[in-house]
């Protein structure tokens, strides 16, 4: 800072040396405050009180986390179910030809009928290697789909950092967001079922 100041800065220093008009503090200047500062002060106090009354209880935090995780679980399950099924269909067609999907449906019905009639063993013996392959693939896909939703331990693993995050950001989901999340879960499942028909 020992450098010589630019002329424009030197001029500024000179300008600032000029006096200004003295004023009184607002508190002394007017007993009946007409300015809006006190209003602002009041607003800040109100805001703080409001924040205090909206202090997040552990239960609220917990339910906010559950809602968030539920929504995430719903979306990931829906998206992966659709992806896995669409991959299964493509694979069936590429391996067993155009009529593979109908044939698999027929085979599954047949298998179910066998199960119902306690004749599964007998009927399975009659399936050709191709048919067995199709059924195996369908079974594998069903298992993947069944395993898609978060397990309790996975939910817990997400919940701990999520709760910490919500706590740090000073709150839970607002009632509006909670409603939006819940509605999304309900309407979303219907919408996805319709869209992926």
């Amino acid at each position, binding site marked *: *800072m020992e*450098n010589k*100041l*630019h002329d*424009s*800065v030197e*001029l*500024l*220093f000179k*300008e*600032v*040396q*000029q*006096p*200004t*008009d*003295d*004023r*009184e*503090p*607002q*508190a002394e200047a007017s007993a009946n405050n007409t*300015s*809006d*500062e*006190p209003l*602002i*002060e009041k*607003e*800040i106090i109100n805001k703080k009180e409001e924040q205090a009354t909206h202090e997040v209880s552990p239960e609220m935090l917990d339910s906010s986390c559950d809602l968030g995780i539920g929504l995430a679980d719903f979306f990931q399950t829906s998206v992966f179910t659709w992806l896995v099924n669409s991959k299964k269909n493509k694979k069936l067609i590429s391996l067993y030809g155009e009529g593979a999907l109908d044939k698999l449906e027929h085979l599954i019905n047949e298998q179910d009928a066998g199960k119902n009639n306690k004749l599964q063993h007998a009927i399975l013996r009659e399936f050709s290697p191709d048919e067995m392959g199709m059924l195996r693939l369908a079974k594998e896909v069903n298992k993947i789909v069944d395993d898609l939703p978060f397990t309790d331990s996975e939910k817990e693993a997400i919940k701990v950092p999520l709760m910490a995050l919500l706590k740090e950001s000073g709150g839970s989901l607002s009632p509006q967001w909670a409603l939006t999340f819940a509605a999304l879960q309900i309407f979303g499942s219907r919408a996805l079922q319709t869209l992926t028909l």
Partner: protein
Amino acid sequence: MSEKRLNKCFLAVGRKGTGKTTIAQKLAQVSGKKICVVDTDDHPSYDAYELWKISDLHDWKTGNIKIVTSEPEAALIAINKNCSNAFIILEDAAKYVTANVQRGVKSFIIDHRKRNFDLIIMFHFLGDVPPYLAKQYDSMLLFKTGDNLDNPQKKFANWHTISEKAKRILTNTSFNYCEKINVDE
């Protein structure tokens, strides 16, 4: 007797270590007014200033003080209400003088002349200066900044002048070099 001037709102914009605080303090000292620094951290450059609480501001008559607070809005409202005739330094203002600034902060800046306050508001980047302030300041002390000067910041009506000067400042060999730019320049 010298002619009276209007109160000023200055911006000091520059990277860390470029000398904003030093110039701000010198400017405040030559004004002959008592000085109040509002900061969110206890900046070592203001060690000589007495640390005051917001609640005691109504007793501040003389001397240079600093308010270190996590609630700068409350500090500015208290200064506006209880004090007058001072030079106020708003340190690290990007933390609380933002685009969606709190009403108390904005009122303080807009009304500073009513209390005979001169202000100097410190930012690290031109990009940190909120749009309403880019139109309200009187003069800017521009140091070396890290802004991309080829990307016009339309909030400044005099961007062309600012960018030209900023480029010149960047090429100056002294790290602490700065120039003044008026809002209407």
